[in-house]
Structures are given as structure tokens and as C-alpha cells.
């Protein structure tokens, strides 16, 4: 390979080049500075870095606060120790086994608890962490109780010694461990970069940004969260096996709440969601105690203080969030028709009934507007159609009666071909415009976690298609200039457009728009009206809630009027406008609600 080809290759593989650039100094360090003590400290930092990278997947990328992470580290360490002591299992077999054991427990815990929201999930994980630690402490005959396990074997590798190349065990010499941990850190960082720049990474970020909207855009929220949890636990398990083999002795004390918080502090310090941030946090908090030896007593005091100050003055951490952007060119796409029928839909919350026996038909390729006074039940109706709420009675049929939407989860409904936007914008504010749209393709592509990490052909092809089509869609709606901007920085009107583009990316046959022009100026309003007509022209049925009659009347093929949970009128816009029941519902002001 000549120089320019190498340069091109280097640019084409940004993750490899980053990993090499940042970790090369550490790889070269032992050549110039062979202080065993310093190398040992850095090995410890490396184990912290692996843990921080793993926790970052859960806390940073997926936004699930985990306060029991040390438990999975413990499971990894004890798995290898037990396998090694009782079954004489070698390290290289024990390493993946420990990862799998930790992942199994992680999944087992995640499945019931992942529905728990936010701060409650944090306490749930803390509770599980404590249960694991106390259990390990109490199961004396297996784990040695508080005294722990000792005599754990170190890994063996072919090494060059006095009698040439032989298979030898790692000794007290810190160098082999140093390189083992460095290689693992590099590999894990690289694979996590791949993950973050993939469909799964994007889905996780979308969940962190707005779980409900992510679900409505076809991301299987629970499954994706469990995946993140399992992956993070797997990495902790690997770190545990390395730790156990390095120490050769383990006891429950090493895996307490303080460790969970320490690793969390590393992730927070570096910048939640940032891969290098997690590694940097591990480096800072791992090396700091060594630098401040004489202040050892103040160490934990300092940790507390750092966490408080970081949260107040720089909650995004030292390096802040991380974005991976791609720029691409357009391609064509097609969408087919969609029709829906709602019969006798009813919904009540205790004494309040937002829907009372609601009937509605939407024909293929139609624009139907739903109007009615505030509190008439319009948004509740939308929520029932899109699966955010369940109807108590009646049925919602789609696709000529072939699919029943009532009772399905939001992501299933989306896959059936019904997408929506929200009354109060729910875009993923901290993702780019392009990434927002790309989320819409989640349900239409098939590659999974392993595809994403291993970069299989399927993933590459799908990802290329997703990003190209997303860009094409942005061009279609007039946002291609802003494709690489952060969505939260767009103007209000553009954010509304983006939300429509994101819904279109899901490939719907029926699109539900909840007040698409609310809060817009007249120019923006007519632009959105034009967009809605063009959506219909693509063969997608449109069902919208809107208060602005100047928009509704010229745009709609049919208008449905709701009041008090019922349909009170239906027909062409001009007829409905004169209907006495409608006038009564709006207190005598037709055409100007």
C-alpha cells in the first residue's frame, strides 16, 4: 500500500484511526517507561475503562441510570473464578463464559425491570446490585463468603523466554496484563463505535431522547433497552474475568455500591454517551488517587464533590455528547395506499370518557380532517388509533380489514402502516436532522445488534439505503440543507416539517398529523398545506387534527367533526361548515375556530 492509499484508507475508517491515535501512546509507553508500578496502575485504569465503556452503553447511550453495575463485574469475576477452581477452565475460555454469565443475569434482571421509568429504574438496579452482593456474601460454600475465593489462575500465552517460545502463564510482571487490557479496551471501544454508528445506536439514542416518540416511529423500545442492558452487562462480565485472573483473589467487598458509583462518576465526568469520554473519565478518576496519594483520606470526599460540581456546571461532562455524521446523495422510493375503518370506539378513564362510540372511515388516498372544540377527544382518538391508549370497546381495522389495530403496541401499529406526528413536537432534539429521519427506517430494516457490531453485509447495505433514502426524503420536504444540523437548533416550522419527514420515513400508508400548522405563520402554513397535498399525491392517506379552518377547508376531501367524544357531523368542508350541529358545538362561529 502506498502513502496516499494508506491515507485514503485511514480516512475511510474513522473508528480505527481514532482508536489507534488515542491508544497508540499507551501502547508505546512501556518502550520508554518500564516502571512496573506505573504500568500496574494503568492496567487498573484499563479495567475501569472497560467497565466505563460498558456502563456508557446503558447510561450514556440508552439513558438508563444503572446503580448496580458492580454486580455484573462481580458475576464475571466469580464465574471465571468458579469455573477455574472447580473445572480447571483456562482463562481464554473463562473470559467469554464470564461475559455470557453476566449478560444472562443482566437480561434476566432487565426483562422485568426495564419498564420501570427513570429514577425508579436507578433504584431498582441498585436493589438488584445489593441483592447480588449480599447473596455472594452469604453463599459461603460456593463463594467462600466474606473471605472470597483464592488461587485463581492467570491466563497463559505463548511467550518468548530463556528456552524459546513456550506456553507460559502471566506472572507478576505487569506487562502482559497491561497489553491484554489495552487490547481489550481498544477492541471494545472500536466495536462500540461501530454500534453507535448503526441502526441500533441510533435507536438507543432516540429512546434516550424521547421514548414515546421512538416507539411511535417503530423502534421496539423494550427490546432495544434490554439489548443495551445485556451488552453492558456482557462487557462488565469480561472485565470481571480479567480482574479475577489478575488479582487471583476476589471477595465481595470489591464489588460494592461505591464501585458502581465510581464507574458512574467516570461516565458522567467524561461525558455521558461519549465513548472516549468514558475512557477519559476512567483515566482521570483512576490516576487521580495515585497522584493525590497524601490526600488518600479525602479521595471519596473529592469524588462526591466532583459529581456535584460536574452536574451543576457541566452536566454534559468534559467531552460532551458525541455525534457521528454522514453525508449522502438521493434515490427514489415508492409507497402504496391505505384505508382505515373505526367502529364504535369507546374509551373512558374512570368517570371521564374522551371517546363514546366513535365511528370513522378513511378511504385510500384521502385527506380527512378531524375538527372539534377543545376537549372533544381528538387527540385521545389519535392516541387510540396509534396504540398509545387502548380502546375499551369497538374495533379499529386497517388495510381493508386485514389488520386489527386495537390492542397492538405502537411499534406494531407503525409496522402495519400507520405513522403519526405529535401536537407538541416530539423530535429527538439532540440527534441530527438526518438521524431523526433515519429512525423511521428502523422498523423497515432487519439487521440487529450483531450485524451492527460485526458490520455484516446486510447491515452495510441497509444502512446505506436508510441514509440515502432519508436524505432524499429531506430533500423532498425541503430540509436537505439542514441534514447534518442538530434537530433542536432548527426553527419551529422546520422542526414541524422534520417530524412529518420522520413519520414518512416509516413508510406509512396512513399518516396521522396532530395539529401540523399550530403556531406557524401564514407562509409556513401554506407551505405545510402543500406538503400535505404532496403526501396524498404519493398515495398516502392523511388524517389530521387541525383548528385552523383556513387550512382545513381548502385542504380536506372530507371533514369530521367531534364533540364530547362523538362524531357529530361529517362531509365535504363546505357542507360541514353550514351544519347547525357544528355551529352549535363551536358556539355559532363557523369557519373561525
Amino acid at each position, binding site marked *: 500500500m502506498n502513502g496516499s492509499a494508506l491515507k485514503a484508507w485511514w480516512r475511510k475508517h474513522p473508528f480505527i484511526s481514532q482508536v489507534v491515535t488515542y491508544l497508540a501512546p499507551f501502547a508505546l509507553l512501556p518502550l520508554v517507561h518500564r516502571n512496573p508500578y506505573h504500568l500496574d496502575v494503568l492496567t487498573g485504569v484499563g479495567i475501569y475503562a472497560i467497565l466505563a465503556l460498558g456502563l456508557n452503553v446503558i447510561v450514556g447511550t440508552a439513558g438508563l441510570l444503572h446503580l448496580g453495575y458492580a454486580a455484573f463485574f462481580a458475576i464475571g469475576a466469580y464465574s471465571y473464578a468458579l469455573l477455574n477452581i472447580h473445572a480447571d477452565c483456562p482463562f481464554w475460555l473463562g473470559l467469554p463464559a464470564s461475559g455470557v454469565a453476566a449478560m444472562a443475569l443482566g437480561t434476566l434482571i432487565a426483562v422485568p425491570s426495564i419498564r420501570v421509568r427513570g429514577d425508579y429504574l436507578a*433504584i431498582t438496579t441498585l*436493589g438488584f446490585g445489593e441483592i447480588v452482593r449480599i*447473596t455472594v456474601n452469604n453463599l459461603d460454600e460456593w463463594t467462600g463468603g466474606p473471605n472470597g475465593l483464592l488461587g485463581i489462575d492467570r491466563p497463559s500465552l505463548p511467550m518468548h523466554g530463556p528456552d524459546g517460545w513456550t506456553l507460559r502463564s502471566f506472572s507478576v510482571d505487569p506487562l502482559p496484563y497491561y497489553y491484554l487490557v489495552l487490547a481489550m479496551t481498544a477492541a471494545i471501544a472500536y466495536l462500540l463505535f461501530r454500534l453507535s454508528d448503526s441502526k441500533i445506536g441510533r435507536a438507543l439514542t432516540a429512546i434516550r431522547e424521547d421514548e414515546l416518540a421512538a416507539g411511535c416511529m417503530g423502534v421496539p423500545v423494550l427490546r432495544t433497552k434490554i439489548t443495551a442492558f445485556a451488552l453492558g452487562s456482557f462487557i462488565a462480565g469480561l472485565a470481571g474475568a480479567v480482574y479475577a485472573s489478575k488479582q487471583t483473589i476476589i471477595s465481595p467487598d470489591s464489588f460494592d455500591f461505591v464501585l458502581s458509583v465510581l464507574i458512574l462518576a467516570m461516565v458522567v465526568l467524561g461525558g455521558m454517551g461519549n465513548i472516549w469520554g468514558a475512557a477519559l473519565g476512567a483515566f482521570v478518576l483512576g490516576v487521580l488517587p495515585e497522584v493525590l496519594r497524601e490526600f488518600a483520606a479525602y479521595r471519596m470526599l473529592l469524588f*462526591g464533590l466532583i459529581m*456535584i460540581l460536574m*452536574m451543576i456546571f457541566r452536566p454534559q461532562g468534559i467531552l460532551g455528547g458525541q455525534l457521528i455524521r454522514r453525508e449522502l446523495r438521493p434515490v427514489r422510493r415508492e409507497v402504496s395506499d391505505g384505508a382505515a375503518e373505526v367502529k364504535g370506539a369507546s374509551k373512558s378513564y374512570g368517570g371521564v370518557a374522551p371517546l363514546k362510540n366513535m365511528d370513522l372511515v378513511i378511504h385510500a388516498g384521502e385527506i380527512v380532517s378531524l375538527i372539534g372544540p377543545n376537549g372533544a377527544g381528538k387527540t385521545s382518538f389519535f392516541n387510540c388509533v396509534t396504540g*398509545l391508549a387502548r380502546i375499551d370497546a369497538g374495533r379499529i381495522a386497517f388495510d381493508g380489514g386485514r389488520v386489527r389495530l386495537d390492542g397492538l403496541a405502537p411499534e406494531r401499529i407503525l409496522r402495519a402502516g400507520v405513522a403519526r406526528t405529535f401536537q407538541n413536537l416530539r423530535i429527538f432534539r439532540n440527534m441530527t436532522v438526518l438521524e431523526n429521519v433515519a429512525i423511521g427506517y428502523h422498523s423497515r430494516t432487519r439487521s440487529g445488534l450483531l450485524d451492527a457490531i460485526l458490520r455484516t453485509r446486510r447491515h452495510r447495505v441497509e444502512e446505506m439505503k436508510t441514509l440515502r433514502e432519508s436524505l432524499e426524503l429531506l430533500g423532498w420536504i425541503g430540509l436537505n440543507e439542514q441534514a447534518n444540523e442538530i434537530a433542536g437548533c432548527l426553527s419551529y416550522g422546520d422542526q414541524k416539517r422534520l417530524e412529518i419527514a420522520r413519520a414518512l420515513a416509516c413508510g406509512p400508508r396512513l399518516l396521522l398529523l396532530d395539529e401540523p400548522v399550530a403556531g406557524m405563520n401564514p407562509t409556513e402554513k401554506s407551505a405545510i398545506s402543500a406538503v400535505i397535498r404532496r403526501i396524498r399525491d404519493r398515495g398516502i392517506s392523511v388524517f389530521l387534527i387541525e383548528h385552523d379552518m383556513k387550512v382545513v377547508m381548502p385542504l380536506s376531501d372530507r371533514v369530521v367533526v367531534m364533540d364530547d367524544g362523538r362524531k357529530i357531523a361529517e362531509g365535504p368542508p363546505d357542507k360541514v361548515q353550514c351544519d347547525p350541529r357544528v355551529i352549535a358545538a363551536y358556539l355559532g362561529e363557523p369557519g373561525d375556530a
Partner: protein
Amino acid sequence: MSDAQVAAALLAQQLINGLTIGLVYALIALGYTMVYGVIQLINFAHGEVFMLGAYLALTAVWLLTAWLGAPPAILLLCGMFALSVVGCALTGRLIERVAYRPLRGSPKLTALITSIGVSFFLQNAVMLLYGSREQSVPEVLPMVSWEVGGVSVSGMQLLILAVSAAMMVGLDRFVRRTRTGKAMRACAENTEAASLMGISPDAVIRNTFMLGSGLAAVGGMLFAMNYGSVSFHDGYLAGLKAFTAAVFGGIGSIPGAMIGGILLGVFEGLAAGYLSSEWKDVFAFGLLVCVLIFRPSGILGENLPEKV
């Protein structure tokens, strides 16, 4: 005594022991629940305030005996009460002002992480001030106990019962009848609406922190006297248990915290007495996890779905 009588006496004994510790949990749980009610923050540092209360009570004993020689028990009790309650209330106020107020309006998880930071800070500050070894608490009350039908009740247990009952009745009156208490309830219901009615949320939050910390201090004082020793580690476990109690009863609900604390104590007492004391913390944490997963609204709380 017949076997049945012995069994009944054992049960009664475990119930009384459980009730005693449960009342202490309830006193701490009240602080969690009141703070959560007003600003939806799990104040992780609350357990450390409880621990600080125990240390301040001990400090009061040291100071009073150094100053007066052998003061009467009632004077000692009043001194302990005053120092720990005032000290903790001020600490609570300071924590709120320095650590939580700048974060008003930021994501819940940010505030939760901050509170973990505060917890570490307080724990280690106390360790540095008082030393890392367990401190024994001198006997303030004479060790007396009465035996009724094979069940023994100590003077300490009666004191805990009397003091915590007084605190809870007092709190209930305060929250229902006083102007400040009503403002707290209004803020817990809807902070925005309360502020439009001329109630200052800042003042309410400050009062809530002071009140909650004061109650935790009372819990800390009783805890120190009951166990005869204090350690800087005590806040973590007691804090988590009290949080469990608050969630169990329904976080945000004051009577919920009282009921949750008492039930948790009794549950733990029975688990320790009939199953295994080694595993009693696992039972408590298991309960915590189950409540959070299956009924996060607790016994008395209300469940609020996300609004679209």
C-alpha cells in the same frame, strides 16, 4: 407455658422489635416522601442526614457531660434532640441551596446523580471529622425492661414509640393546619399553580428540606440510643431501607411513608426471626425491587401516566 403460648410470645416479640425499627424507618421515609412530593427528587443524601443526626446526638452527649459532669437524663435527651434536629435542618437547607437549587428544571437523572455526590461527600466528611471507627454511644437512659407474658419491652422501645408517635401526629397537624404546611401541600399538588397563588416554591422547598432533615435527625438520635453505637456507614443502608418504606407506602404520601416504614420494619423483624437474619437485607431489597416493578405507586400513592 405451652408451645402455642411460646410461639405466640415469640411472634409478639418479633412484632414489637419490628415495630421499633419500623418507626425509625418511617421517620426517615417521611423526608424522602416529602421532598419527592415537592420536587420529584429521590434525595439520595437523605440517609446521610439521618447518620449525621445520630452523630450530632452523640456530640451533644459528649458536650453536656464534659460541661456538666453527670447531667440528668431529661436534660441530656433535650440536648441531643435540639442539637441533632437543628444541625440536620440547617444541613438539609444548605444541601438544597448549594446542590439542588442550581439544578431545578434539569433532568431527573442529573439531580439524582448530584444527590449521590452529596451522599458521598457527607459520608466522608463525617468520617474525616469523627474518625472511621464505630463510636459507642454512652447510656443516656437506664436500661429498664418489662416482661409481660414472655414478651419483653424495653424503656428504649417505649421511648421510640412515644417520640415517633409525637413526631408523626405533630407533622400531620403541621401539614394540615398551618399556613406553611398548606403551602407545602399546594406545591406538592401543582408547583406552578401554587406559585401563581403567591406561594414561593423556593421557600416551600427550603422548608420541606428542613422539616424532612429534622425528622431524619430524630430518627438518627433514636437509632444511636437504641443500638448504642454509630458508624458513618449507617446512613446508606438505613437510607435505602427508608426509601423502600417510602416507595412501599406510596412515594409522595405522608401517611404512606408512616405505614410503609412500620410494615417494612415488621416484615424485616419477622423475616429475621423466622427465616434468617443473614438474609433479612435481601428480603428488604427484594421487596423494594418488587414494589418498584409491580406497583410503583405503592400502597397509597397515585400512578401518573405520561401525557401526550
